[in-house]
């Protein structure tokens, strides 16, 4: 088989095709593939995004650069790669909450969050997030957004991928970046969870 000239898109399509056929034929299950994929997720995983968030919390100038040009700011920390070229970071505020979705497939900021979780690809999440985000967040994620707070849902595409800079929780004054980064969950950067200080 020749490898010459195959684009990334073509190869990705082949993986998808092979995987879907093998699942349909009962040769493997999605759960099993996920299970083995998860082992390496941490290499390119949400802890990279968490580092970026923590730095933005302690360094206002970095935060400004991150909101202005996310790929460049992430690059300062040596974080970047495929699917990260067109990233936009949305800052959560007391007035506005942000959440991301890919309405048609599963576009996702891979270099900072790793591979997307299963539910992110689920048609239920993709459609309900647009129809009734407040309800979905409360019912499926146990994340209750105050009624007075606006929710904006952003559609990631392969050309422009969003992720969320969550609010820094209170009670973390004087914490260093490492301590803060440990608080930042993947869900909080998707906008389906809060950042909580564990007692």
């Amino acid at each position, binding site marked *: 088989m020749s*490898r010459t000239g195959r684009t990334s898109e073509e190869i990705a399509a082949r993986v998808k095709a092979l995987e879907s056929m093998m699942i349909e034929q009962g040769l493997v299950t999605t759960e099993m593939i996920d299970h083995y994929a998860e082992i390496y997720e941490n290499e390119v995983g949400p802890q990279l995004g968490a580092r970026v968030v923590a730095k933005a919390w302690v360094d206002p100038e970095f935060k400004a650069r991150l909101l202005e040009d996310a790929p460049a700011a992430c690059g300062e920390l040596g974080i970047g790669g495929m699917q990260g070229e067109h990233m936009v970071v949305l800052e959560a505020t007391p007035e506005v909450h942000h959440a991301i979705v890919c309405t048609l497939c599963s576009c996702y900021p891979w270099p900072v969050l790793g591979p997307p979780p299963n539910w992110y690809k689920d048609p239920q999440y993709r459609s309900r997030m647009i129809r009734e985000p407040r309800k979905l967040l409360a019912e499926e994620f146990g994340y209750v957004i105050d009624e007075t707070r606006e929710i904006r849902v952003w559609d990631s595409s392969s050309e422009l991928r969003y992720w969320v800079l969550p609010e820094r929780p209170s009670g973390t004054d004087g914490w260093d970046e490492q301590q803060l980064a440990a608080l930042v969950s993947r869900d909080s950067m998707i906008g389906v969870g809060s950042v909580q200080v564990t007692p």
Partner: protein
Amino acid sequence: MRDSNGQPDSVGPGEEVKALVQNLPLLSNDLAFDEPWQLRAFALAIAAHKSGQYPWSDFQSALIASIKGWEGAGEVGDAAWSYHEHWLDAIQAVMVDNDLVDVDLLEERVREVLDMPANRNHHEPHYEPVAVDPGC
């Protein structure tokens, strides 16, 4: 307060996978994944083996054959990229050789997948929120 330094918590399967990949050709200890499909293909090969679809030695041989063919052709390029592509070729070869996957149906499916993005219109940036739920 702090997590376990970002270490994978799934030590069991991690060791299991390590045992499988340690004897593969060209593979350094630091598996690099630059794109989602690479990780997906990686996990797919292991999952299929663990599901009893083929002995690991079959996959190993197919991977070696794919790499040999490539070296013979004198192809140059990104080594990591090529490695994952060989990996994919190896899964396909084993599945097709064992009559588990029909190659014509596979090609058809690949075309279907490739045809989809055009209709999906998801290669355009969307600059405005797709939904807003105003606070009240």
